[in-house]
């Protein structure tokens, strides 16, 4: 049997079809956000995701740090290229001859975004807040050089006036250290926990040590950076506009920065390609290789102070044998792995402290040597890998599976051993590391401040990040000796000795030095990613390539 649609329905269908055709024909290539942004000096930045907070004393994730440098300014700024301390709210600073007292002289024209002047008391209030136990800031360790700071933050000291901060007058801030810390200015210039917060705003909305009062919402926000928060649409966009009250506003070219929260690197890359973003954060590995080959002018690669390595649980035999750990380190070809997996991002690493640490030459003991690795295995009682137990190599689901498989394969070929791969979701992975229920794990560390100690201190016997079960009193002693050295050059030499101890014992096996990889439109000028990945938006301007 045949069915026919009545004439009315047919003409309705035809009309719809005609409308759709017209609608599609009416579509035309529109001006992109990048074109529009170039015209209005509005930077569209692809952030890795939604920031958890914009409170400089609470933030703890990568997306937060991409924004915070636009909204706040500390005593000092870090030079975008060299990371050397540059004036911020402090115009000048002096260091006492014994290296224990730092005096910061604040500029007279530094203002909050509501027009209030910034005083030394604001800094005292902010540091007291950051160190308050109830605020539970996770970065209070970045105050550890300051006299009494650890005691105050752990609740052992209740009187903040006993902590080494004082403000003799509204323009002078004095910081007294517990011990000589040559990298102290590096910590101050690179970390948000040293940023000031606006006292009246905090107190209007809650207690000094109260979390989540909503003071960072656009309607309440008061900051002191080159930009001020105007709009925050969660999981969508954060808009920061140029602050007219900023002391150096004359040198800020951008009118606004749009931080688009885009979790997926693939989505970021597509948005960049379709002209929605000026700058991305990261590039998917496969696409980075293609950009490197065909559009390298769009791909910005900056060496950063970050190393990827394998953490070894030395309590699990036979990993308690130093020869086994050394052999594992000798038995995979880092250069080949890096070039095969992600040449844009990875560079072969033979030390834990990455290259590019100011004034420091990393200690390198070994290069790959499969024959030597086999000899060490034989010496340890596992000739050609015979009798070697199956160990587990753990990583996060976010880690590169290709990297883990390449190492697994190299160990199988060169040592005749089999390691199984365990990929776990991030928090489960970190929990197994914290509980030390793993054999080998892919890890990475990025420096908090530009000094080798930001890496080497991790493996102190009682270190909170030392998951290796490796506790070496001699290593701790070497660290103490280096820390008490007052001559900066000699101190760095001593740190190299510390690193040599670590490299010889090999509780952590270096794999790659990491680079910051991002796509940048040709219309973006003066973009600089510093080696601590703290972007500086002040100098950026948009214009013809």
């Amino acid at each position, binding site marked *: 049997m045949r*069915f*026919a*649609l*009545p004439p009315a329905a047919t003409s309705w269908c035809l009309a719809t079809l005609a409308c759709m055709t017209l609608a*599609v024909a009416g*579509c*035309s*290539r*529109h001006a*992109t*956000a990048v074109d529009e942004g170039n015209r209005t000096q509005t930077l569209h930045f692809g952030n890795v995701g939604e920031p*958890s*907070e*914009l*409170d400089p004393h*609470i933030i*703890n994730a990568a997306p937060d740090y991409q924004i915070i440098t636009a909204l706040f300014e500390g005593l000092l700024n870090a030079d975008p290229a060299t990371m050397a301390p540059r004036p911020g709210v402090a115009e000048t600073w002096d260091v006492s001859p014994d290296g224990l007292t730092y005096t910061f002289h604040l500029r007279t024209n530094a203002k909050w975004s509501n027009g209030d002047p910034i005083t030394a008391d604001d800094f005292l209030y902010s540091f007291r807040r950051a160190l308050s*136990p*109830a*605020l*539970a800031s*996770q970065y*209070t*360790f970045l105050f550890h050089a300051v006299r009494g700071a650890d005691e105050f*933050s*752990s*609740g052992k000291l209740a009187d903040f006036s006993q902590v080494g901060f004082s403000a003799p007058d509204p323009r002078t801030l004095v910081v007294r250290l517990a011990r000589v810390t040559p990298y102290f200015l590096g910590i101050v210039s690179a970390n948000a926990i040293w940023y000031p917060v606006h006292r009246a705003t905090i107190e209007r909305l809650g207690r000094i040590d109260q*979390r*989540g009062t*909503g003071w*960072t*919402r656009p309607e309440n926000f008061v900051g002191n950076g080159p930009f001020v928060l105007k709009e925050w*649409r*969660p*999981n*969508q966009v954060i808009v920061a506009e140029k602050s007219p009250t900023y002391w150096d506003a004359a040198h800020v070219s951008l009118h606004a920065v749009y931080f*688009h*929260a*885009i*979790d*997926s690197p*693939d*989505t970021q890359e*597509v*948005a960049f*390609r*379709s*002209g*929605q973003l000026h700058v991305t954060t990261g590039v998917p590995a496969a696409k980075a290789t293609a950009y490197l080959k065909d559009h390298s002018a769009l791909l910005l690669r900056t060496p950063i102070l970050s190393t990827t390595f394998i953490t070894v649980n030395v309590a699990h035999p036979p990993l308690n044998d130093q020869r086994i750990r050394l052999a594992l380190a000798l038995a995979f070809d880092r250069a080949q792995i890096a070039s095969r997996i992600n040449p844009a991002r990875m560079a072969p690493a033979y030390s834990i402290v990455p290259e590019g640490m100011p004034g420091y030459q990393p200690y390198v003991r070994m290069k790959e040597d499969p024959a030597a690795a086999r000899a060490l295995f034989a010496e340890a009682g596992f000739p050609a890998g015979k009798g070697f137990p199956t160990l587990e190599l753990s990583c996060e689901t976010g880690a590169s599976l290709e990297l883990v498989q390449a190492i697994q394969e190299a160990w199988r070929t060169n040592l005749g051993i089999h390691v199984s791969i365990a990929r776990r*979701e*991030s*928090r*489960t992975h*970190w*929990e*197994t590391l*914290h509980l030390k229920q793993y054999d080998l794990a892919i*890890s990475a560390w990025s420096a908090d401040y530009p000094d080798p100690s930001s890496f080497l201190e991790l493996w102190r016997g009682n270190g*909170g*990040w030392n998951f290796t079960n490796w506790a070496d009193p001699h290593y701790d002693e070497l660290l103490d000796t280096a820390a008490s050295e007052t001559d900066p050059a000699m101190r760095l030499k001593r740190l190299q000795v510390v690193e040599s101890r670590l490299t010889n014992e090999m509780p952590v096996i270096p794999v790659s030095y990491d680079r910051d990889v991002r796509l940048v439109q040709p219309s973006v000028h003066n973009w600089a990613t510093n080696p601590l990945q703290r972007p500086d938006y002040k100098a950026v301007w948009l214009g013809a390539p």
Partner: protein
Amino acid sequence: MFRFITSRFLQSLLALYVVITATFFMVRFVPGGPFTAEKAVTPEILRNLEAHYGLNKPLYRQYLDYLGSLAHGDLGPSFKYPNRTVNEIIGDKVPVSAELGLLSLAIALVLGIGLGTLAAIRRNTWIDYVASSFGMTGISIPTFVVGPLLVLAFAIHLGWFNASGWYLPSDRVLPCLVLGIAYAAPISRLTRGGLLEVLHQDFIRTARAKGASEFRVITRHALRGGLLPVVSYLGPAIAGILTGSFVIETIFQIPGIGREFVNSAFNRDYTLVLGTVILYAALIMALNLLVDIAQAWMNPKVRLE
């Protein structure tokens, strides 16, 4: 009818309570917690954080506290976003997912029922083959393939739409189309199957014998029975479509609730996990009830009592 609805409502409340209780305890027994991170926090900081969120109390106490606040409609603070409450997050994101969902649903219904009906009435013709191929293809090709393909064609090459974002009305086109097609495919197959079964029944012959036009036979008589499988499918499907799609929201960077289902579990954001689960469970229950009522209305053989 009233008795049926009241009894189903009470059953749903009980089921919701069981879901809340099971979820509350299950998330607590997952390895890792809201403050587990690469950089381990010191025991003192952890104690202070736990005290702030009440995690230092015994578990049964936390459970009773949670039920207490829930009774007042308070879903608690988010662990991941200290600045925001779960109520706010859900309140912000559900309208976005609902907009995405309703537009997609409209596309899915028009396309699915239209194609399914055409396929059924033109059975074994090229129209049927085209419609059935669409159904099979739509079911087999996942949204994370269709999405990027449409982006490549319409956003990058033709430049008609933005590749991602949820700012302009035109930003709705691609995601709604992808999600709509994904749901249209099974709907078209169910419609075709349902209609074919009904078209051979006596009451259709009677309708024709009375001289009703084919259009009327299909729309007034056949579809009412033929759409029953679609309606049963739509209950859970609408709950799913309204509460967002993780894949679509990620590909197109849409600030909907779908991503929170997944991310809150990864973040061990206990209160947000519970909030999203409660939302989803309540929607499923409400829509299943609606489906039962709709089916009774469409099919006289079904009685609610």
